[in-house]
């Protein structure tokens, strides 16, 4: 089997398994006042400090959540809510058109419920927002801007965004900036302190930790409206009994990922370069999407359009050959909508639907690329002649 979907989730690191097993065997609610509670609390705080060390923020900035989606929701709804409480005229939220659904859907909800006006920032053909355009959008009416949100690196095509530049422009106007860094942390040098960000979403399972835990790194001075009310944990911003074992696994994975980040990123970039070269040789009309310059892209991401094919047909054929990848699209009942990211990059629907994402991670090796190349040419040939379920004219 070749697992080429590390952007969806990546295998647990042994360090995380060990830390979780150890913490899980201990009884203790981190909010309890007795010895067991203090012991649990100590695990949480040591984890918080370890994570803060990697992300270059203060331990007090780290708010543990159930994952990246919750962190994004808390940032978007919470920051906007608090800004509007102070100044009701701040209705505009500037957001990149390629945000993850965890950011995009809360924004759509805010707009549809009459709480915000969303300005979707266009991207270029590589999927990148222009910092100049953001500056111009702010300057057109700075008093109306409540929040800016631009992801660190795109989950589908891997393109990195000029997040620190945008954050520093926004800082001149006192406008908070949030960034979904779920895909970036572990692969790219992410320094929260240097970035100028107000908040940043992080997820454990994308870097070898467990599913179900993540964090919002939130500048201590920033005000957010709590989205989950209860026992007042996590600065009274995110109530709920702390997931001690999950948090311990999260920290262990993050430290392990950070320790090997530089060498691992260059190893993956080389493996990715090999994959891209071989795919474009085997399927000459395949189009490599996103930034072709490795400096502007997540090291493990390769994203292609295969003209004349449907991505879900290719996925089925590759899956049958033990090669696992993604069409990169979100779905509820498994229904594939054309990716909003690719559409924002200027692709038409048919090309967007012909796309597949291959993502590498810490367990990837050359044999995975070999397995892909052994299956891909025949799959493309077959998918190309398979009639689609949509009418050709609707493309």
């Amino acid at each position, binding site marked *: 089997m070749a697992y080429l979907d590390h952007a969806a989730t990546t295998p647990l690191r042994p360090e995380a398994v060990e830390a979780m097993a150890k913490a899980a065997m201990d009884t203790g609610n981190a909010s309890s006042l007795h010895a067991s509670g203090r012991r649990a609390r100590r695990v949480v705080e040591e984890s918080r400090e370890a994570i803060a060390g990697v992300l270059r923020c203060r331990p007090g900035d780290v708010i543990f959540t159930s994952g990246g989606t919750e962190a994004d929701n808390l940032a978007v709804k919470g920051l906007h809510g608090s800004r509007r409480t102070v100044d009701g005229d701040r209705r505009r939220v500037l957001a990149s058109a390629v945000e993850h659904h965890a950011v995009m859907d809360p924004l759509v909800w805010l707009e549809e419920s009459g709480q915000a006006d969303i300005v979707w920032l266009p991207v270029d053909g590589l999927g990148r927002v222009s910092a100049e355009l953001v500056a111009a959008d702010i300057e057109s009416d700075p008093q109306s801007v409540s929040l800016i949100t631009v992801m660190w690196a795109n989950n589908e095509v891997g393109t990195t965004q000029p997040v620190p530049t945008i954050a520093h422009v926004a800082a001149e106007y006192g406008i908070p900036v949030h960034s979904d860094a779920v895909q970036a942390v572990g692969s790219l040098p992410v320094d929260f302190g240097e970035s100028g960000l107000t908040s940043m979403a992080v997820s454990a399972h994308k870097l070898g930790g467990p599913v179900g835990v993540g964090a919002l790194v939130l500048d201590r001075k920033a005000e957010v409206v709590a989205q989950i009310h209860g026992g007042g944990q996590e600065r009274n911003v995110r109530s709920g009994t702390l997931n001690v074992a999950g948090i311990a696994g999260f920290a262990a994975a993050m430290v392990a990922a950070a320790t090997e980040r530089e060498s691992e990123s260059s190893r993956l970039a080389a493996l990715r370069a090999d994959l891209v070269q071989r795919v474009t040789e085997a399927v000459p009309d395949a189009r490599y999407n996103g930034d072709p310059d490795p400096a502007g892209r997540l090291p493990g991401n390769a994203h292609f359009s295969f003209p004349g094919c449907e991505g*879900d*047909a290719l996925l*089925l*054929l590759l*899956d*049958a050959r033990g090669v696992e990848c993604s069409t990169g699209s979100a*779905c*509820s*009942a*498994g*229904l*594939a909508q054309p990716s909003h990211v690719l559409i924002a990059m200027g692709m038409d629907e048919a090309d967007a639907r012909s796309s597949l994402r291959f993502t590498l991670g810490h367990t990837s090796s050359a044999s995975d690329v070999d397995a892909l190349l052994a299956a891909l040419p025949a799959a493309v040939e*077959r*998918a190309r*002649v*398979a*009639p*689609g*379920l*949509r*009418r050709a004219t*609707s493309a």
Partner: protein
Amino acid sequence: MKVLAAVSGGVDSAVATARLVDAGHDVTAVHLALSAKPRTHREGARGCCSLEDANDARRVADMLGVPFYVWDVAERFAEDVIDEFVAEYQAGRTPNPCLRCNERIKFAAVAERALALGFEKVATGHYARLIETSAGVALHRAVDEAKDQSYVLAGLTQEQLQAALFPLGDSTKDQIRAEAAQRGLLVASKPDSHDICFIPDGDTAAFLGDRLPVRSGVIEDSDGNEVGRHDGTWAFTVGQRRGLGLGRPGPDGRPRYVLDIEPAHNRVVVGSRAELAVDWVLGEQTRWFAPPDLPQRCAAQVRAHGRRIPAVLERADDRVEVQLLEPEYGVAPGQLIAFYDGDRVIGSARVSQTAAVATSA
């Protein structure tokens, strides 16, 4: 053999898929998403395209250890099945959307894609049998007469049947439920789906009313006397008795039925049950699995679980003239008329005209 199994989330397709796995086939399960905005839950026994059904289908595939995908056919279903359903009613005909779905979706778009992707057959949980003969595949009734679905498959072509597998045709529904329970399939006790899946509340007139304009006209008796008014001929179907809004029975004190729908004159004609009887049918868009030997004795069937009417085919090429040896009631233009020799389907056609020859002679 590489088989694509269409799994709805119901008990029939679950057992059909399980039987294919047992038989050693290389099975891939596909759930067809028929609605772009599926409802979250099933409403009673109706409908078959909710998210709950998709999840049930996924669980069946999990338990059987076969790959599972959702194929989005919502756009085609809307155009080829729902739009056509509405247009047929508007034209004064009575469509059967399940038949249309089999002809245009399941055994057409889905099967064509499956074959191109390397599958050899498409399997469904229909109750019907396919029997290999020297002349091709023959479509036969299921052994369970009450569940037999050969009628809704009778519009398929020989080529479409060649690619089909119906693993349930030799079993009764009771056996299938028992087998599902014995296999531990969670859908064993799920109610059967009834009626039309895209009209979950069963109110066809309201569904059509949301899509077609109000156009008031007259309801007449067969002598041309106005007996009532209507808001659109599309709300009626030949043979309909309820919901005519006439407020009183006919002059003979008996209920009145819709005899004819004339959209061109915006007129609905009603009359007694006796006037509803027909013994001659003209059919178009014929399909022949075996060329009939005229005049051919056969059994005709005009609705999904309708009775077998002894009949004689008097002409059979691209059109068919059928003499019914017993009168049938409520035969509507647009319906499929299927012809059987014993349990074998010999052909089918769309009803275009009907007449009562013996009674009027």
